[in-house]
C-alpha cells in the first residue's frame, strides 16, 4: 500500500491541482457516485480534467477516479465540481442517498439474489 503521499511529498501538487480550494460541496458527490463524461477533452484543459474525461467514457465511481489519479477522494470531488458546473460530466447518484429510511426490502432482495449467483 502506498505511504501517504499527501502528507509526505505532494502538498504543492494538491494545491496546484485544486487551485488552492480546500473542499467541494460534499453533498454533490458521494464516494460511489458514478461519473459519465459528456464530451471529449478540449485543448488547453487542465491535465487532471482531461484524465477524468477519458476515464469516464464509461460510468466510473468517484473512488475509482481517486485511485486512478492517485489523488485523495475530496480532491477528486473538487475537480469534478468544475466539470459538472461546465456540463462536461453527468452524475448517477447512489439510490441509497435518496432514501431516508434505508434500503427497501426489494433492493435488499435484489442484492441478496445477485450475491448468491456470483
Amino acid at each position, binding site marked *: 500500500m502506498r505511504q501517504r503521499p499527501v*502528507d509526505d511529498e505532494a502538498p504543492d501538487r494538491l494545491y496546484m491541482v485544486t487551485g488552492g480550494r480546500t473542499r467541494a460541496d460534499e453533498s454533490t458527490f458521494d*464516494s460511489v457516485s*458514478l461519473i459519465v463524461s459528456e464530451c471529449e477533452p478540449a485543448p488547453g484543459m487542465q491535465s487532471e480534467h482531461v484524465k477524468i474525461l477519458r476515464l469516464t467514457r464509461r460510468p466510473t465511481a468517484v473512488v475509482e477516479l481517486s485511485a486512478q489519479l492517485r489523488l485523495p*477522494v*475530496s480532491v477528486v470531488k473538487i475537480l469534478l465540481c468544475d466539470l459538472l458546473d461546465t456540463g462536461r460530466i453527468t452524475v448517477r447518484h447512489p439510490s441509497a442517498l435518496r432514501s431516508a429510511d434505508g*434500503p427497501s426490502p426489494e433492493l435488499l432482495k435484489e*442484492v*441478496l439474489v*445477485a450475491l448468491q449467483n456470483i
Partner: protein
Amino acid sequence: MPSRTSERAPLRATAADALKIVIVGGLGVGKTTMVGAVSEIRPLSTEEVMTEAGVGIDDIRRVRGKATTTVAFDFGRITLTESKVLYLFGAPGQQRFWYVWDQLFSGSLGAVVLVDTRRLQDSWYSIDRLEHHRMPFVVAVNRFTDGPGVDAVRDALSLPPSVPLVDCDARLRHSCKDVLVTLLRHLTTWYAPAQETMS
C-alpha cells in the same frame, strides 16, 4: 474468466446505482484478501483527507500535530445487475479512520467486522463505532488457526444474539460470498419496517 490484471475493467454503460458494504478490521486481519476474493477487479487503493467536516481543527492538531491527516483504504467491486454495482471497502478500524466515516461511507448498506481471534481486542473499538453510527453489521472470524469457538468469541466481544457471527476463510471466494449473504439476510431483518405497536 474475466481478466484480473492491472488493466482497467470499466463498468457497463448501463451502470447507474452503486451500493456500498464496508469490511472493517485491524491491520493484517485479511480485509484486502477478502475484498480481492470476491471482487471482479484487482483491489484498488486510495486515500481520503480529513476535512473540517470530519473533525474540529483543534482535534486534527491533537491527532497528528498538523492541520490535515489522511486515511488509506482499498476497495473492489461486484457487478450485481445491469444497473447495480456493489463496492466493497476494506477499512482500517483505527481511531482516526472513523473521522472520515461520514465522508466515505454514509449510505452504506452494512458492514462486516473481520476478526482475528488472536487479537480480539482490535475489534472492540470498531464494533463500538459501528453501533454509534447505527450501521448494521455481522462479525466474521477469519480462521488463521484453531482458536476459540464462535461462542467464546461472541462472549469476548459481548455481541448480542441478534448480531450474526460466522467463521470464514478470507482467501476463499465462496467463503467470503457466504459472509456477504449472511450480512444481506441480517440487513433484511434490520431494515424491515418496525412492527407498529400502537394500541
